[in-house]
């Protein structure tokens, strides 16, 4: 028995990992609180950026279906000017009234604004991708630390329980002695005190590791929440990016043709005006204007044949994207309600049991507590 007790008292319990102290743990928690605040702010900004970009880029695409009619009219030289203005109003962004400016300038401006939005989204995507990767790495690292804490916690608990058994046995022996101040009693009391000290020391370790495990679990949970939101937002942004690119590809694929027609429409009209000062017959001036127009648009014919902005496939893509977005929103609402129910259940449970913090596991307190 004495040999067993000596072995128990002299056992070197080794805990894995380093850097576990109350200060280090508190430091980590504080750092993560700051990081989570920053994540919240960043998510808020990203979410707003997404909503703004989504409303700018999808509204006009989904609502208008007659751009092709304008294009056909432009390329068959029917009321080119008014049809061009009509077309410009169908291009997403700057959907307000088209001011009295050169059509080509407006076209250029609209393309630039639309492309700027798409590139902004591309930048957000890269940033979010990097944040997702960092969070994933962080979660893996924290999970490893949590496992180390759990192993250490188990090791400390097991040792403390062994010590507690030995302590009970010694206390029973002391109680069984007649002579409280005899030599045997004194020896047992010394062992009891030593046991208590070791229990206190490893009990503190037990609480530290238990606390660390809980704290890390809470941080991981929060990180997982961020990861989920970020991943959803990334998917939404990717959808926007893809549909924006799709539209831009359609537009820019036909841009040279559109610009040729716009330029010809503008310049021919102006040329007609300029030639009127020659006091020639209206017919002659009109022929010159027509020939000039043809000179300027000699490549238009082949370019018109592939005009299919907002064709059926694009419409379907945009509409399916919007449908997917709506579905995700519905899903989010369901998740939110579920979360509220779960949290409410925790609160009710905490009230019933008299706990103060409605979390799944109650923290065990800090070292030396």
């Amino acid at each position, binding site marked *: 028995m004495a040999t067993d007790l000596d072995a128990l008292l002299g056992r070197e319990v080794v805990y894995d990992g380093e850097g576990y102290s109350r200060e280090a743990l508190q430091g980590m928690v504080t750092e993560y609180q700051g990081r989570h605040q920053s994540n919240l702010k960043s998510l808020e900004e990203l979410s707003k950026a997404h909503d703004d970009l989504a409303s700018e880029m999808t509204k006009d695409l989904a609502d208008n279906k007659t751009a092709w009619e304008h294009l056909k009219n432009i390329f068959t030289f029917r009321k080119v000017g008014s049809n061009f203005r009509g077309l410009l109003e169908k291009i997403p962004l700057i959907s307000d009234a088209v001011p009295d400016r050169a059509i080509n300038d407006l076209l250029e401006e609209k393309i630039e604004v639309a492309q*700027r939005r798409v590139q902004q989204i591309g930048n957000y995507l890269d940033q979010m991708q990097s944040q997702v990767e960092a969070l994933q790495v962080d979660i893996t690292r924290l999970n490893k630390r949590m496992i180390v804490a759990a192993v250490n916690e188990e090791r400390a608990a097991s040792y403390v329980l062994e010590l507690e058994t030995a302590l009970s046995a010694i206390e029973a022996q002391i109680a069984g002695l007649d002579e409280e101040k005899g030599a045997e009693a004194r020896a047992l009391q010394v062992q009891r005190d030593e046991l208590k000290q070791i229990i206190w020391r490893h009990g503190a370790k037990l609480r530290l590791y238990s606390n660390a495990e809980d704290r890390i679990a809470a941080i991981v949970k929060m990180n997982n929440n961020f990861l989920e939101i970020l991943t959803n937002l990334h998917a939404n942004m990717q959808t926007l990016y893809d549909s924006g690119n799709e539209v831009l590809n359609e537009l820019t694929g036909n841009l040279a043709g559109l610009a040729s027609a716009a330029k010809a429409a503008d*310049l021919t009209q102006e040329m007609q005006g300029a030639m009127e000062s020659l006091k020639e017959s209206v017919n002659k001036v009109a022929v010159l204007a027509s020939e000039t127009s043809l000179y300027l648009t000699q*490549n238009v014919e082949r370019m018109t*044949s592939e005009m299919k902005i907002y064709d059926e496939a694009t419409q379907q893509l945009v509409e399916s994207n919007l449908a997917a977005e709506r579905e995700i929103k519905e899903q989010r609402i369901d998740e939110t309600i579920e979360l509220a129910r779960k949290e409410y259940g925790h609160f009710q449970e905490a009230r019933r049991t008299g706990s103060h913090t409605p979390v799944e596991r109650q923290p065990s307190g800090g070292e030396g507590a």
Partner: protein
Amino acid sequence: MEPLRFELAVDGPLPEPRTVEAAAAETRPRFIGGEAADAYVQRLVRAIGAARLNAFFPDARRLTRHLSFLGGAGSHGVYDGLFVARSSGLPTAREVLRVKIDGDLAEDFLRDVAEQRPPSPESPLARRIAYYRELSAAEVMQLNHMSVELRQRRESDGAALFRVRYDRFDLASEMFVRYTILLTQHGAGGVRGVRFEEELARATEGFRRIISRFASDEAELCFVLLSEEPNIVVEDVRRCRIGPLLGAGSKLASDEQSADALAALLDPARSQLPDPWILCFPEDRAGLDVTANSSGDALAPLLRDALSEQSRTLLDRKADELGYRVAKQRKFVCPRGLQKPLAALCRKLGAPSVVRGI
């Protein structure tokens, strides 16, 4: 030179397209990826540098810097290649615009990411940061930029003589272009003219708009239309472009004879070059100092040569009224192996031209 022939079809609709696929194959931009894209960009940059462009052309230093950000190598891998316009053989408007917009976005982006944890090396974000850092420190093209310079102020009649430079990326031809306009303004300028603020000439918004509207095709059209503005006397309009870049299978908007001869030069089988190409630098000018209408450009006729007799007479009367004449010329850069045959072809077509080889 044979005038261009047109079938006037303005009274009715144009013929229905053959098939969307066939037409799309002709006009859709061509994607070049990987090392081929980097080699394409390098060739373009070298060719522009070799052209020794004067001040009437778009700024070659800025332009080559702009183009150097295209493709995978130029963008640090942010983009994996580039789209090339089939009509001009040059990067599409979207590619050109992309560099400009990235340059605009770079500062805010770099500020935002500076507040975040540094990304892992070789991640997309790390590559974008490297690309944006380099781009934000570079001087690239301004895609729509006008400058007005006072040449002289005449005390006798209060007239002001200006030189207007207007740089744009022309969406229709998908080429960089610079217009240089010499004009005299009588009076204060009004809402569509140039004003003086603290002795500096400032173009009004109205003036910018008319220049942007009229300087969108041939120099001659710009000359005629700008001359309609009250209080403005136009002296000279010069349009200088960079492009197209011709290669095997390029569409050549010229008459049959020159198109066939050029196609032969650009055909690897006939030219005995593995990858023949020709970069063009066309210039057209309408000015009071130009003594006679002349086209020294084998690939582009004068507007009047493409018109019917009746319309040409009208245009010539307008030219007489305003006192201008028009001239065209074009210089070329190509591989050394094409230099002599191309120069010989230009002479044969009656348009001797500067041809530089690299």
